[in-house]
């Protein structure tokens, strides 16, 4: 039994991601957001369900589809939105954008525009925790496309031999851009590959956030106990195309409709009502609160200036020199 308070928190996180992303998609169509954006809509249960077991000091690395992980890790919505808008008040002062949002103060070590790019980084964050004995857990989020990158296999092996506190979360939404996982991956479940590294491989249903939460909690507890990594695969669906504007011709309408019928947010909404843990009014109030927060985030982003062109090469090298531990 997952506590009602936790269930409501999961609902709030998932809905925040959904409303945030819907607003980004809408604003993107106005042309005010530079570059391109990859929507997390449909996959909310993964970020919410996993990050609910993490604290601020724990680390995550993310993907090109990273807004959901940022929200779930507790990043400020206004500074996130300003980053997506490329503004000076963005989390990365506009230098990163949608695909490189990071918030090191919350252990959010970056969205990543290289498929599989965050996997080794999370392994290293776990290594740092292990060397120091400081207790943080690191989570690497990656997609089914990254399941076929060599660095995943090197990292799983490294984390296994060193028993690093890392949870590898494969968000299998069925498609690497347009290429089906069923075509590109040699096994039906990415989690089966855990056997090759002698670590647990677990499959969870991404349309059920409580199942994701429970599976992730077990993996995080295992990591914290020093028992080593877990490969957790969550079967999920992206409701939108690969990127905003993708004509999505590799799926037909029926397929898309079917995925939306298994929406984790609607599922938890109905369960909260059925179990009596929340009323319709309470859930509506949460939605209204989130919508107001997201609108405020957009206003904050729009009001923030674009970075000064004179600073085009600023931050190439770190400016904040750490206090050296040495006397020389």
């Amino acid at each position: 039994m997952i506590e009602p308070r936790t269930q409501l928190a999961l609902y709030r996180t998932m809905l925040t991601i959904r409303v945030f992303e819907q607003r980004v998609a809408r604003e993107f169509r106005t042309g005010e957001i530079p570059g391109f954006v990859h929507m997390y809509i449909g996959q909310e249960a993964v970020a919410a369900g996993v990050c609910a077991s993490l604290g601020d000091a724990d680390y995550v690395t993310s993907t090109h589809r990273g807004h959901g992980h940022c929200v779930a890790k507790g990043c400020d919505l206004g500074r996130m939105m300003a980053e997506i808008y490329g503004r000076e008040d963005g989390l990365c002062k506009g230098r990163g954008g949608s695909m490189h949002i990071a918030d090191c103060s919350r252990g959010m070590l970056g969205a990543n525009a290289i498929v599989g790019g965050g996997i080794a980084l999370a392994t290293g964050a776990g290594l740092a925790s292990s060397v120091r004995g400081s207790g943080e857990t690191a989570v690497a989020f990656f997609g089914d496309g990254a399941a076929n990158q060599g660095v995943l296999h090197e990292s799983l092996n490294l984390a296994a031999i060193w028993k690093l506190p890392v949870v590898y979360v494969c968000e299998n939404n069925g498609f690497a851009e347009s290429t089906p996982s069923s075509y590109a991956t040699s096994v039906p479940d990415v989690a089966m590959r855990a056997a090759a590294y002698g670590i647990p491989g677990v499959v969870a249903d991404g349309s059920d956030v409580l199942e994701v939460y429970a599976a992730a909690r077990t993996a995080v507890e295992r990591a914290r106990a020093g028992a080593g990594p877990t490969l957790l695969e969550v079967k999920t669906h992206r409701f939108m195309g690969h990127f905003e504007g993708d004509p999505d011709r590799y799926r037909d309408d029926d397929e898309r409709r079917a995925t939306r019928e298994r929406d984790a947010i609607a599922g938890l909404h109905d369960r909260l009502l059925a179990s009596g843990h929340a009323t319709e009014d309470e859930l509506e109030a949460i939605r209204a609160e989130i919508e107001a927060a997201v609108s405020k985030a957009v206003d904050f982003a729009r009001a923030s200036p674009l970075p000064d062109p004179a600073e085009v090469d600023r931050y190439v090298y770190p400016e904040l020199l750490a206090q050296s531990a040495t006397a020389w």
Partner: protein
Amino acid sequence: MVTTTAATRSLSLVDAVGEAMRQAMEADPNVIVMGEDVAGGAGRGEEKENAMGGSFGATKSLYPLFGPNRVRDTPISEAGFVGAAVGAAAAGLRPVVDAMWADFTGLAFDQIYNQASKMSFMFGGQARLPLTIRVAMGSGIGAGAQHSGTLYAIYTHLPGVKVVVPSTPYDAKGLLLESIFDDAPVLFFEHLKLYVARGPVPADAYRIPLGVAEVRRVGGDVTIVAIAAMVDRALEAAEQLAADGTSAEVIDPRTLSPLDVATIVASVEKTGALVVVDESPPQCSVASEIAAVVSEQAFDSLNGPVRRVTAPHAPVPFTPSLEAVYAPTVQSIVDAVGSLA
């Protein structure tokens, strides 16, 4: 130049590098060393552990002092362990990675180029990346095309990383300590031909700032900029040239990124001539970069064209007859200077 005193011993470059790592690890618990065979024999029990101490022995003294938590033998997984070092650096450690040969960094290039080098910039200055990657490089020992490349030009090209090319044991120690405590990723190139060369090295820890060249020999007729193992050859060439009445100034840039342009330009303004000696293929090389910068900033001082003395546009050959003509020689440097007259 350093003089030998009670506290200054004669050390080989490889031992100077090892001493720098030891002193860094003593000073800061966040410094760790990782790579293939940095201890050697991991998990084989006390007698067999630390069987290698690195492929060239640089890390030999570390394992007995700091143990397996901070001196980590890695599997042969360059992308995995270099990437893990990047993540560990972002999470607060100061990893020193032994990637063995410069050529092997190709396996980890995405981790260096797309992750480490861009992180501070992409994150708007949030991330510190105190990572040092040590590699061996250089021709002259019959190691063949995949164990000899210099590659420092490739890393000098990348914004966000720093590139260090020591030519003496003294510099190797001070520059490595500086690199380890720098908050940016540093590629640290150790030339194989210099590993056994001995020189005076103070026992105490000291740091040499990155971006400061050393004038190895003062002269008035021609400036010779030489990199790593080429410095000794340039000095020998300068000796021969002096016998013929040509006074050469020899500059060792010591770091290629940042590059001490001011020292090089000031020298050319004095001598009016420049020869750059670089043991790399010439296209888009550091020699080319130095030639270009001097052409832009000291063109009016030049009495003739800048000469580059480099390897041919070829990988490093294996067989002695070919390898012998690959890197610049004392004679080719003397000839290049002669061609300016």
